[in-house]
């Protein structure tokens, strides 16, 4: 059944809107919910890292907030991608719509929540006398695109593999936990010992998170890190699409 691109846009639209509506309806807190979690994490890490461990840093709160919000988008997307295909099993068994739209709607849902939390980030930055600057206008879309491609590529892999190996979901959550502490989110990258520092470039999230912070805190975009993010994004997308394509023909047999 071949249908026009308009239909696929509609399909992606209803799937994404469903996710968003469900998240907003299931609790009165709705919007607050998606903001409260990273904010409370910020408080906790402020206490642990700044007050107890006494990290020598100015403006630690906006530093944390920017890192945690963008991390949240990535991490939530991956956890929901892991289960998204099994959650739609009855549809997959009967309706031949393009499956790659399901993980895409999961990533877009969390992208939406990230966008909605940008005003909150902006407000906190204002409290610390950091004001919007021109580079935001092109920096935000560029970083959104880079992070979307990387997250979606990985999401495709995770969702496809989880259909077959159903405990992958657990490994994903463990992996996310490890990655969280390996990425300079609650500590600045300049504190990483010189010996280890070169290896940080193997972490695909490092250039993204680092650039989000450069952009929001210093009003500048690091070109090298941006290119690196896009390369990671492209690689992840290619591998993700390839794997997903190979596996997707068998989804209906397995779910």
């Amino acid at each position, binding site marked *: *059944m071949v*249908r026009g691109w*308009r*239909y696929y846009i*509609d*399909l992606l*639209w*209803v*799937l994404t809107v*469903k996710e968003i*509506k*469900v998240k907003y*309806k*299931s609790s009165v807190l709705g919007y607050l919910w998606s903001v409260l979690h990273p904010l409370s994490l910020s408080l906790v890490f402020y206490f642990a890292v700044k007050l107890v461990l006494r990290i020598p840093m100015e403006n630690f709160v906006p530093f944390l907030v920017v890192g945690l919000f963008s991390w949240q988008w990535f991490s939530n997307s991956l956890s929901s991608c892991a289960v998204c295909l099994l959650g739609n099993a*009855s*549809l*997959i*068994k*009967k*309706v*031949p*719509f393009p499956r790659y739209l399901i993980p895409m709607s999961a990533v877009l849902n969390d992208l939406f929540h990230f966008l909605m939390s940008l005003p909150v980030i902006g407000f906190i930055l204002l409290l610390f006398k950091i004001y919007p600057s021109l580079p935001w206008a092109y920096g935000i879309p560029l970083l959104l695109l880079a992070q979307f491609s990387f997250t979606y590529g990985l999401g495709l892999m995770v969702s496809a593999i989880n259909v*077959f*190996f*159903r*405990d*992958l979901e657990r*490994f994903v959550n463990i992996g996310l936990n490890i990655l969280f502490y390996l990425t300079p989110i609650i500590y600045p990258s300049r504190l990483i010992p010189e010996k280890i520092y070169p290896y940080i470039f193997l972490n695909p999230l490092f250039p993204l998170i680092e650039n989000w912070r450069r952009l929001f805190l210093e009003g500048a975009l690091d070109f090298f890190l941006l290119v690196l993010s896009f390369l990671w994004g492209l690689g992840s997308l290619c591998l993700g699409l390839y794997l997903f394509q190979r596996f997707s*023909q068998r*989804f*209906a*047999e*397995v779910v």
Partner: protein
Amino acid sequence: MSEVVIRLREVTKSYPGYSYITSGLKNFVFNFRRALSGIRKRFIVLQDISFEVYRGETVGVIGRNGAGKSTLLGLIAGVIKPDRGQIEVRGRIAPLLELGAGFHPELTGRENIILNGVLLGMTRREVMNKLEQIIEFSELREFIDQPLRTFSSGMIARLGFSVVMHLEADILLVDEVLAVGDSSFQKKCWQKLCELRKKGVTILFVSHALDQIEKFCNCVIWIDNHRIRAMGKPSEVVSIYRGESEWK
């Protein structure tokens, strides 16, 4: 009855032993050898299936549990690819989903109609144009803006059926789902199915309700041991099938 809308030619489908994989990575690694041989071993589900369905026919598919009936519908719907053989389908297919599939309990009835309609192949505009008709047919207007979780299962079935009935599909796949809703709604569904049939919609119908099959279909396919055992007039095929099941 002229045009062939579904044609299967020597279609064979087998599955590997998926259970060795789907029980998880941990099991797979710890029972590696057994898992590997399990995957290599293939289970035949359907073998050398060939048949044609003409436009406007109503075909019943019968057979014991696990005979491969649902796999057959999956192959025709295009969600499962055959190992060998060809499948040609002409026209728009609509599957009748099981209860609540493609719905979300937190969304309202109205929102669910739109979601389900698009999932089943309509554009948003097409659904919006038919929204009133669908609500009317479901007889659930009073509740339509309530979240689906407040609906009874019969009401959910009505809603799902109402969407499918308005898809303007050429081929309808019905897999064992008509036994829902109260008797008056069931009657309405049968009426609607008959109406669709008169319009030239082809219906494929998997069921264990032999009486319904006899009454409703004009051709029956009996799948036994992964092959077509018999195919033809409902009264004849069903009576042989009945005799054999009783004997066993």
